[in-house]
């Protein structure tokens, strides 16, 4: 409950920040209905210039719908979306010129070669110096040696890169990537993430994922979305700090550590001690102060042999599960 209150406060604060000039993506009250079903429900968020924003949520949370609205593929039922200073509903063509988009399905013309495909997309984008630019982009996605390969002969990872190259062609101010690493092998995932990280800084990147570690690894900011609503919004680190409500410290001593629980409980600032197994403990502490030196002293002075002492943040995964669970519980309570 406390966690929800904290993040609700934070979301509210962000609303007022929303009207900053350098926002590359600004979304207010965005709603999409399919018949009577609400796919997204009054979403409000923003992305600053150079930021990499992660859209994190389970399948069917409304990520793809939101991205399709931002890219002008489908209209919203309600609300406003401004990308790179252009309204995507009233000034769609201009907005689309400033957006690079990689749809989840990575649509490609499989009968074309990589070069032909990029040449076609570049012509549609009316690129000046098309050949040079295509070469540049192919280099940045490490595809230079596959220029003449037919797309139908490429692996999933290669196709993903072609899709990414297409999104980058016209040097868009905003990149929208729907599940950019889905279906790739671990090495390819690392490559794509590396590429996205390189892109952030000069361009605004918005990507969706349902893989938590991915959001944690590449995003400056994470929006957690479920059933069309934003549950939380912050940097991965701060989300962790806010939602765990304090610090957690792991301790490992030699032997079974008999009597250690009592000794640790006496340390000022400790709120709870959880024995994990023989000689291993996790300690919850009040937020703010650094409690590790005190714990180390208590352990050593009590005659135990300290093997390990580490700060443990709550992982994004735990936060995410907690948020989704809390929301489900809240709903149940309301229905009861």
């Amino acid at each position: 409950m406390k966690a929800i209150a904290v993040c609700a406060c934070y979301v509210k604060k962000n609303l007022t920040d929303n009207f900053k000039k350098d926002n590359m993506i600004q979304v207010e009250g965005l709603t999409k209905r399919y018949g009577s079903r609400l796919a997204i429900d009054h979403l409000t968020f923003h992305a600053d210039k150079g930021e990499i924003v992660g859209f994190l949520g389970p399948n069917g949370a409304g990520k793809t719908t939101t991205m399709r609205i931002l890219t002008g593929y489908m209209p919203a039922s309600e609300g406003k979306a401004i990308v790179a200073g252009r309204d995507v509903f009233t000034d769609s063509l201009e907005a689309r010129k400033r957006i690079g988009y990689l749809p989840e399905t990575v649509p490609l013309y499989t009968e074309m070669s990589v070069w032909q495909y990029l040449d076609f997309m570049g012509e549609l984008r009316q690129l000046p110096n098309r050949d040079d630019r295509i070469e540049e982009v192919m280099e940045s996605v490490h595809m230079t040696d596959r220029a003449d390969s037919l797309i139908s002969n490429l692996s999933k990872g290669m196709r993903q890169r072609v899709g990414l190259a297409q999104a980058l062609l016209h040097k868009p101010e905003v990149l929208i990537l729907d599940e950019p690493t889905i279906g790739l092998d671990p090495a390819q995932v690392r490559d794509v993430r590396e590429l996205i990280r390189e892109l952030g800084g000069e361009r605004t990147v918005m990507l969706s994922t349902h893989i938590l570690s991915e959001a944690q690894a590449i995003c400056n900011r994470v929006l957690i979305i479920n059933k069309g609503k934003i549950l939380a919004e912050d940097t991965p680190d701060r989300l962790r700090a806010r939602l765990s409500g304090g610090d957690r410290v792991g301790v490992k001593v030699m032997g079974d550590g008999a009597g250690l629980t009592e000794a640790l409980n006496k340390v000022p600032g400790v709120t709870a001690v959880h024995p994990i197994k023989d000689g291993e403990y996790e300690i919850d502490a009040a937020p703010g102060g650094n409690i590790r030196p005190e714990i180390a002293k208590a352990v050593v002075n009590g005659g135990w042999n300290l093997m390990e002492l580490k700060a443990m943040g709550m992982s994004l995964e735990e936060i995410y599960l907690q948020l989704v669970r809390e929301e489900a519980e809240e709903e149940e309570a309301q229905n009861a």
Partner: protein
Amino acid sequence: MRNTWTIAKREFVHYFVSPIAYAVAVLFLSILGLLFVANVNNVAQQGGSPSISFVFGPLTTLLLFFAPVLTMRLLADEQSKGTLELLLTAPLQEWELVVGKWLGAWLFGLCLLATTTIYAVILYAYGNPDTGVVYAGLLGLALLIGAILAIGVFASSVTGNLIASVAIGYAFVLTIWIIGFAGQVVRVLFGGNQVIATVTEYIDFAGHFSNTFNRGIIDTTDIVYFVSVIAITLFLATRVVEARRWR
């Protein structure tokens, strides 16, 4: 306009790498060749003078079968493969996309038509054909091909399924092809000047070619007719693509 040309170019080039287009071209040209030889032989034996309309007449019938096959994938394929999402999120307007698709198909159709000029050359070499029929026929066919392909583009816009696209294309083309007979039936049954007969005969596709262009007559009514068919069907196809966004 530039985008229209970009799309048209891609579609035109695609026909030359597509097995379906080659199959259509081979059948089309061989059937036309056989009919030419048979017709010319017939007329020559009866002592008549062979005309290019011997080629152009059956050509219109062949188009009835081949046009929906040539256009079936134009928009249906984009929908089923998801590439429509790519095009509609590029700075491209719906009408540019639809007109580009049609233009690409029409250019390919004109290439097929251009091959029939060989028959004109043969006739000039061995006989004395009516030059007016050659020019009027080519103009009429260019328009007729444009109209029939535009109907195909519309059929392709309403579905993401290739087979459904061909079936819908046939349904429309056949209807517009035989609707003149309906008019004749009405005349026979109810006699005289029935409005319905006049209307259906005006809508009738083949009549606008076989009664005029193929006899060497260039009538603005027919030009207006074919241009209208192209404009209306492409407009409808554009609306269908636009409507897709709102679903």
